[in-house]
């Protein structure tokens, strides 16, 4: 096992505080995600915040623990799935008779359709960004462990 994990094992304060903080970080990520259309934020920022929760988990509890929470195959599917979700909105808009990504046609009125469209699209962005960030962190952590 890596030295990093051993070092953190004795750090009671770090472990307790991060256990307390991780859910709050995740909640904040969801807030940034779904508040993005009214305030500062959006899918990319939310995705990074969500990923940072998992990366803190990895730093404190070790790579193996985090991999149990977020298995690689799931992350792979999510990272591709988010992008597909984004594209799917565009395709659905086409099927509804609009142009590609014209999400005004998704709802009964154009503004409602635009709200639906932007929320789904930003969700796709958030999913892809979060899972890709975690995948990258895993890759680096594996490199460190190999040494």
């Amino acid at each position: 096992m890596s030295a990093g994990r051993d070092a953190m094992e004795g750090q009671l304060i770090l472990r307790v505080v991060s256990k307390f903080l991780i859910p709050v970080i995740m909640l904040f990520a969801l807030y940034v995600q779904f508040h993005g259309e009214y305030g500062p934020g959006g899918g990319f920022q939310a995705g990074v915040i969500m990923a940072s929760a998992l990366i803190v988990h990895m730093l404190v509890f070790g790579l193996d623990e985090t991999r149990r929470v977020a298995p690689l195959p799931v992350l792979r599917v999510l990272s591709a799935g988010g992008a597909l979700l984004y594209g799917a909105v565009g395709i659905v808009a086409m099927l509804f008779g609009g142009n590609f990504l014209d999400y005004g046609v998704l709802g009964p009125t154009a503004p409602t359709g635009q709200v639906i469209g932007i929320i789904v699209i930003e969700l796709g962005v958030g999913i892809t960004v979060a899972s890709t960030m975690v995948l990258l962190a895993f890759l680096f952590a594996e490199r460190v462990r190999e040494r």
Partner: protein
Amino acid sequence: MDAHFQALIVVLPLLAAPLAALLRGRTGPWLLATLVSWAMLGLALALLLKVQAEGTLSYALGGWAAPIGIEYRLDALNAFVQVLLALVAAVVLPFMHLSAAQEIDEERLPGLYAAVLLLLAGLTGITATGDAFNVFVFLEISSLATYTLIALGQDRRALTSAFRYLIMGTIGATFFLIGVGLLYGMTGTLNMADLGERLPAVADTRTVHTAVAFLVVGVCLKLALFPLHLWLPNAYTYAPSAVSALLAATSTKVAVYVLIRFLYTVFGVEFSFGELPLTSILVVLAMLGMLIASAVAIGQQEVKRLLAYSSVAQVGYMVLGIALATTAGLTAALLHLFNHALMKSALFLALGCIAFRMGGTRVEHFKGIGRSMPWTSAAFVAGGLSLIGVPLTVGFISKWYLVLAAIGQGWWWLVVVILISSLMAVVYIWRLVEVAYFETPAERDRHHEAPLSLLLPTWLLVALNFWLGIDTRLTVGVAESAARALTGGGS
């Protein structure tokens, strides 16, 4: 439905890329990518026919009308380039199945095909869009995919060459973006057609001149014009065989398209070549490229690198045609853009066959392949003839038009330079022919002909080299109409 073709040709590969990354094994992702490339070819041909029948097509992405929204704008020029892109992809992808399975670990294959699809999405996106900033975005998508593809090569040096290309490519893209930013600052618009209308009013400012400088240098880095070509030889040499074929036929061609689009549509012929001294700068660099890169190609021992240097020289022909700033010159540039893609992809695919059987593409691997791999070596010779510009091949057609354009300007010395450069091509191709047919292999030969699934795509491209070299109605017709529209001052 056909109203959406313009968007679908970009969206299809873009969405197929994450799907391909999700699939496992060696056949699934490949099959998806191949089917997508065939669909793209169908879309591109349909769009070309439609453009010829109805004129310029416009598609408002997201329903936002131009010039505020992103507009996809298709005329004869980009429809022509899209057909080329889709055609090369549709032929190279079937080839890639066996070739990539031999050269790349199975677990990386889904990533390879995802990157190929992203590359296609980026390149078609550049040609599809009518928005200057959107060009930058797609440029980055295609470049990032390219860096990944090059890094997948077997040789460890693939990593350093991918990194070098990353640095050079990023500088190029940044210069391009600075140029676009300056133009936006002066005109307040990013739509190319709109830029073309608003620029003349502010053309005589230092800001616009600076923007032109940044844009031209940035794009010339991407298209590997002579002194900015240093990233290209290593990138083509160490990339996987099929990827080299795809890149050589598409990525520099799309950069040439961007150069044409900006110089002719956005800045306008009078400004680019009348007010600014671009003709003399580009002609000198193109000529130096043709002569020096051809000379360097003659001395190469690694055949992929030889072809890469020859590509740098061939880019010179295209830029020469552009710099002439006449309808004839531009026709020649467009023809050569299309024709060079055909000959280079045929040659690189033949090299891929050789790499598949012989395990390498250095000159010594060519020893005796005339006997052991007759079809592959014949394909290589045929592609080489086209590269030299022998009559009945596409290479002859584009050089013929280029020579005519040069004579039309009264620049006889240019004809001499073109001939010298072609003669140099004879030297470097003949050297390989000699080794392939007249030298006996060192050991008793147990190598045999490449499998049919590699030979068929190779020969399809070789056949196109001859077919379009004899029946030139399609290519010359489209190139001429595109060139006339661009030089005639119309959109």
